[in-house]
């Protein structure tokens, strides 16, 4: 009956209940979309590391993120391939480039060169064409999301990157890097574009044998290549993400707006629930006089908090789902890991219950004797 009383009181005070629900929707949606943008950006930051099939990345010494670093000598490749724990090792060349548009302008992009013929670490989602297109010396990919930036090139169309002839061989689907448009090509074309010598590469990707202990393998590779930075893929991914979060202000900015969204929601919920209790003081006094204990009143308010949290969460997550669906293939980076919604919902319910504490204190302090005044 306490839950029914709680529900009926909420339905009776529709305006204030709507305000409280709005507070929950604000928390779920505003915080959710901020976090989804954060996770979308995180994915962009470490997109290469996360999608390449390597267990270990070898970078130049003092590398903090995958998008930085200098050149490694190609002779290191043979040294690494000589390590027992290594199943295969392939070089990767990354370089910046300027794509020439038909109207004479240029647009910056990141070129990733893959070793032929295996093209290990190549694009993983295609809108048109396939990875085999990159076996062609001039072929590069363009992403569907970047077609407008690149002047809507079609497969087979020819342009230039850094004044080097390239031909669009395939269109990838939603593959972007944090530092801009990602263009994949073969390693030889990448060297030509970036003017990188044949004896150099940016990284060496290493796949370990299934029996190898990754930590031991990293230590061995570090001994074999003393002037390099050797990362397990997960380490380089998190190191890259930390680097951008702390050095670009993105973490602070999104964290701040997340906190603001949360605070706005809490304030709305607290004030509206408190207003409801103020309006219903006489009812609580009557219930207390009839035999309700303080804890019965507290439980009633708690139920109200839970109902508001439940309804607000459903609406908030629906709006969030619409937002995520609407931005799925857009240039706005959004991503919601599956583990996040339950935590977000639980956290919001907790906030809602915290917000109801003030109302609870007010309602439980109502003296039953006031029912007689």
């Amino acid at each position, binding site marked *: *009956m306490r839950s029914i*009383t709680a529900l009926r009181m909420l339905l009776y005070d529709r305006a204030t209940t709507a305000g409280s629900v709005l507070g929950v929707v604000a928390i779920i949606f505003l915080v959710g979309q901020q976090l989804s943008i954060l996770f979308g950006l995180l994915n962009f930051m470490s997109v290469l590391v996360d999608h390449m099939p390597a267990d270990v990345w070898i970078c130049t010494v003092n590398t903090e993120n995958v998008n930085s670093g200098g050149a490694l000598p190609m002779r290191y490749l043979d040294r690494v391939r000589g390590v027992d724990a290594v199943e295969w090792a392939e070089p990767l060349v990354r370089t910046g480039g300027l794509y020439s548009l038909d109207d004479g302008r240029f647009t910056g992009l990141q070129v990733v060169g893959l070793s032929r013929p295996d093209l290990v670490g190549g694009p993983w989602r295609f809108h048109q064409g396939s990875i085999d297109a990159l076996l062609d010396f001039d072929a590069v990919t363009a992403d569907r999301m970047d077609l407008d930036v690149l002047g809507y090139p079609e497969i087979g169309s020819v342009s230039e990157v850094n004044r080097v002839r390239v031909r669009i061989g395939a269109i990838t689907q939603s593959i972007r890097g944090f530092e801009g448009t990602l263009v994949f090509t073969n390693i030889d074309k990448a060297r030509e574009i970036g003017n990188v010598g044949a004896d150099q590469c940016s990284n060496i990707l290493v796949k370990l044998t299934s029996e190898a202990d990754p930590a031991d393998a990293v230590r061995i590779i570090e001994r074999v290549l003393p002037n390099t930075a050797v990362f397990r893929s997960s380490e380089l991914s998190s190191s890259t993400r930390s680097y951008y979060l702390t050095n670009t202000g993105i973490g602070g900015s999104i964290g701040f707006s997340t906190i603001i969204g949360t605070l706005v929601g809490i304030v709305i919920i607290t004030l509206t629930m408190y207003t409801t209790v103020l309006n219903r003081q006489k009812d609580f006094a009557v*219930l207390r006089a*009839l*035999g309700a*204990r*303080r*804890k019965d009143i507290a439980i009633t308010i708690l139920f109200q908090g839970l109902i508001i949290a439940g309804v607000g969460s459903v609406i908030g997550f629906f709006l969030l789902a619409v937002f995520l669906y609407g931005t799925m293939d857009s240039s706005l980076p959004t991503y919601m890991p599956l583990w996040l919604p339950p935590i977000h919902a639980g956290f919001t319910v907790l906030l809602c219950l915290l917000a109801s504490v003030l109302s609870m204190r007010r309602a439980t302090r109502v003296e039953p004797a006031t*029912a*007689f005044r």
Partner: protein
Amino acid sequence: MVEEVVRLELVTRDFYDGKQLRTVLKKTDLGIIPGELTVLAGPSGSGKTTLLTIIGLVLKPTTGRLFIGGDEVTDKSEDERACIRLRDFGFVFQQAALVPALSITENLLVSQAIQGDRVTRELREQAHRLLSELGLSEHGDSKPQQLSTGQQQRVGIARALIGDPMILLCDEPTSALDVESSRIVLDALKTISGEGSRAVVLVSHDPRVFPYADRLIKIEDGSIINDTRHPGEGVQDEESY
């Protein structure tokens, strides 16, 4: 000798009004027996509602002892007093004081199920029976604000009776009612007290109430100044008040 359902011994009650301590109920001895409609009468501020709320375990006495059904309850905790109120008392308030968010039936049920108990079929049937007895059977699903003041007060009486309490405490139940509604409400209370097993205590300064009183207790300035019994016949002479 009928056993008292409520016994007050040397009960006082002080209030601090922000400036000074005021004794609103002076040393009071009082026993309430079942089967009587007891009227507590007196001018505003005389202490009659304070006495009623002490009897109903809503307020704690400052000094003195209080017994319910022979058991001392003076020092019971707040939660224990709430449980006793729920079990042994029914309350009828000045203006019905129904919860507007709940339907009429739910207003009756909530008084018994507010401590989290399940609403049983028996309880629901009892609610319907009480509403029927008070001529409100067709209003079970209505909201309080859809009923007249007199009907609301009858719902208040039904709510007070649903737990089959030992003692019914009524705080000026006719003050907001017209003559006809007052008569219906007072007839109902008289019938309830006449059933013999239940005590009805009614606070009022409405002279229309006195003819229904089996016992009239006059209070002035926090003290009982007169306590007379008129079993069955009521107080017919207003002058005696």
